[in-house]
């Protein structure tokens, strides 16, 4: 009789501690995306030898009309628009192609860069993401801002990062971080089916989103040969190889055409693909 007692007396607390350990262990995985390894304090190369890349993104052919959004069920958001609420994914109004995520895809392997402290703000105003496309560095925080004052939820469905689905019932900011590079992470709001946005996560600061004129620039690059990629939500991706020499500014242009519209569809299909297809002005409806 006693022998079993001794075995049990040793076994039971061990099991209990293990459970509490792993239960508690689960605890510290909380918090935004988990911090990456400690980023260095300053640039891994001599800034004086840096070069720049500038350029612009153009679009040829007839752009598709802006998609009209049916916001009847969300009167507060519809009120913020003069005409019909709409979103134009292929925005050529400012002369060039807007909302193109341009970043250095190859050429910076093995180098780790300081994480900018300042958060990238993705605002939700008039039931739309502003900007539609944003870029952020691994470990840098993204601030989702709800300036509509009504319920939005940020349902991000990355594959390399951990998916999350957080809500914002009132005007507030929610900060998240991404632990792994991933181009692009689709985000959507389940309360307003038409809302869709994309976040590009890279391991270095050399990323930007083209403005209305299509212009973009990547500054302070270490000299070397790089592959620059331009990603667009509807037109797919283009890439170019460019060499950066000290003190020089390399010129790059990306030329999207309307023929790329049909082939691309939604380039980065997250696990929600059957939903985003049906929801985001895709072909189905």
């Amino acid at each position: 009789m006693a022998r079993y007692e001794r075995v049990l007396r040793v076994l039971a607390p061990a099991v209990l501690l293990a459970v509490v350990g792993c239960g508690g262990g689960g605890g510290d995985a909380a918090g935004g995306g988990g911090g990456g390894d400690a980023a260095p304090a300053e640039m891994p190369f001599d800034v004086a030898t840096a070069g720049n890349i500038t350029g612009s993104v153009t679009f040829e052919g007839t752009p598709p009309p802006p998609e009209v959004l049916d916001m009847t069920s969300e009167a507060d958001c519809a009120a913020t628009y003069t005409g019909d609420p709409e979103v134009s994914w292929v925005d050529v109004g400012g002369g060039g192609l807007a909302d193109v995520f341009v970043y250095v895809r190859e050429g910076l392997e093995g180098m780790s860069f300081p994480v900018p402290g300042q958060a990238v703000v993705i605002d939700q105003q008039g039931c739309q993401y502003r900007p539609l496309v944003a870029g952020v560095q691994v470990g840098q925080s993204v601030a989702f801002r709800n300036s509509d004052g009504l319920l939005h939820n940020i349902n991000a469905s990355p594959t390399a990062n951990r998916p999350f689905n957080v809500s914002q019932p009132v005007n507030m900011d929610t900060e998240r971080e991404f632990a792994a590079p991933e181009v692009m992470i689709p985000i959507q709001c389940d309360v307003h089916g038409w809302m869709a946005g994309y976040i590009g996560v890279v391991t270095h600061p050399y990323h930007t989103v083209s403005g209305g004129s299509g212009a973009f620039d990547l500054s302070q690059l270490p000299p070397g040969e790089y592959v620059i990629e331009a990603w667009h939500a509807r037109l797919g991706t283009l890439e170019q190889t460019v060499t950066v020499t000290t003190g020089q500014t390399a010129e790059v242009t990306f030329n999207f055409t309307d023929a790329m519209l049909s082939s691309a569809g939604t380039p980065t299909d997250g696990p929600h693909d059957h939903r985003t297809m049906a929801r985001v002005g895709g072909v189905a409806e």
Partner: protein
Amino acid sequence: MSVSAPTTDFDLLPFAGEHHEELPFIRKYIFSTDHKVIARQFLFLSLFFLVVGGLLAAMIRWQLGFPGQPMPGGDVLPDTMAPGGIILPEFYNALVTMHATFMIFFAIMPLLVGVFGNLLIPLQVGAPDMAFPRLNMASFWLAVPAGVLMLASFAVEGGASGAGWTAYAPLSASGEWTGVYLGQQLWLASLFILGFSSIAGSVNYVTTVINMRAPGLTWLRLPLATWALFITAWLILLAMPILAGALIMLLFDQTIGTAFFRPEVGGEPLLWQHLFWYFGHPEVYILIVPAMGIASEVVSNGSRKPVFGYHSMVLAICGIAFLGWIVWGHHMFMSGMNPMLGTTFMVTTMLIAVPSAIKVFNWLGTMWKGNIHLHTPFLHGAGFVSLFIIGGLSGVFMAATPVDIQIHDTYFIVAHIHYVLFGGSLLAIFAGITFWYPKFFGRIMNEFWGKVHFVLTFILYNVVFFPMHSLGVQGMMRRLYDPYQYEIFADMLPLNRFISIALFALVVVQVIFALNFILSLRSEKVGPNPWKANSLEWAVPSPPPHGNFQHMPVVYRGPYEYSLPGAEEDYILQTEPDEEAEPAERSVEPATR
């Protein structure tokens, strides 16, 4: 029939308490195999989770009463739950889910089955301990990690499960829909472990009652508390494994991506509902049948009168347990299952109202022509009967399928649940704790404060939950974070605010019971039979020593022979021999009266 005093020495049995060597602290209180110590352990564990469940309820009521406003003390919560004290919708869903999960699986069920099952069964059947003491200890030490895992699910990424305590698929089958990944998996794993704890416990209870009854203690001399716990043990034995199977399948859907309940890959969401409710309905009877047993004990003791129709009370419990297996479809009238099934389940559900009615009338019959001592356990028992009447009757509305169309998944259902679980089981638990406090701790709880607590709880309880019937009839749905988004419910805010405030008062009133419970640990000691009851647990000192009975008890009469004509006292212990037995009988000296 001469009775020789038990001469054979069964040293295997720690029968007589005195020659038992003093146990080290860890074996006496932490890893004890004594059913009374395990009962106390379950008592403290489940009272803790009752408090946790109560706090979660208070938060739910805050959000419903004061939608979107920062909760006082809410800023202690992390931003993933309530930034600036404002409860987020996904946290509200987690509150609703975890309030029900903690209350059902970690408070009411362990309180009824774990606490009173462990304390009463060996004592009332006259056994020294459970049939398998080590298995009994394992049952408690499986419930603790289950509770820890469930608590831990609040702290993980994505928060606790937000798919309701019923965890309907596909919402619960993939974190894609709720953003809750690890939290749901912990919820499933925790209940799976708790399933083992419950099955281990009920194997013990059934074996002890069948096989270790004292001589003379026939089936129809068993007290109704033990009858109820015995039938409940059978329900657990047969229902928990069904839940275990369903939880495993859902856990695999969540983790390795099997296709049981995920429609996009061919699974059947309705299959989960069938499996869950096939366990679910016996589960809700597991939550009420022991309470009925306790109520019978305290009502009969309070009225100083035998339970009216003991045989039909036992038959009613068996009837409820049997019918409980063929009614599960009434939870799924609207679920999309074949409507014709709805008619069959309506008929079986209507039938199950009959045994409950029989029990209610028998309780009233017990009080009729009694000599009612309004002590606290009896008051809680009478409270149980009156509120169980309302709970039972509101069940008839839902059983009628067309009426269920309007009130399914509305606050009418919430009112019914709370009338049966809070007004029913929890009041019976208060009655049980107060009644058997001497057997737990050898002391007695303060009668005055017991009555104050009862009166305040009874009134505030009704103030909180009775208006919910009206909310339900108006169509206000369950689990709505902010119901006032619907214009037709906007005018229900004042009533909800009133209910919320009443609930805060009700939660505060429970402090009286907590203080009474804790402070009475130091009150004056009591003898073996303070309530002058008959069953075997009152024939041993309070608290009973290890091994319970000095000598093997012999039972000569039923448990409810109160106010026997011709007896000098209005109660008589089961171990009292009949008058015509010769004096030699008395060698088995009963404990002091």
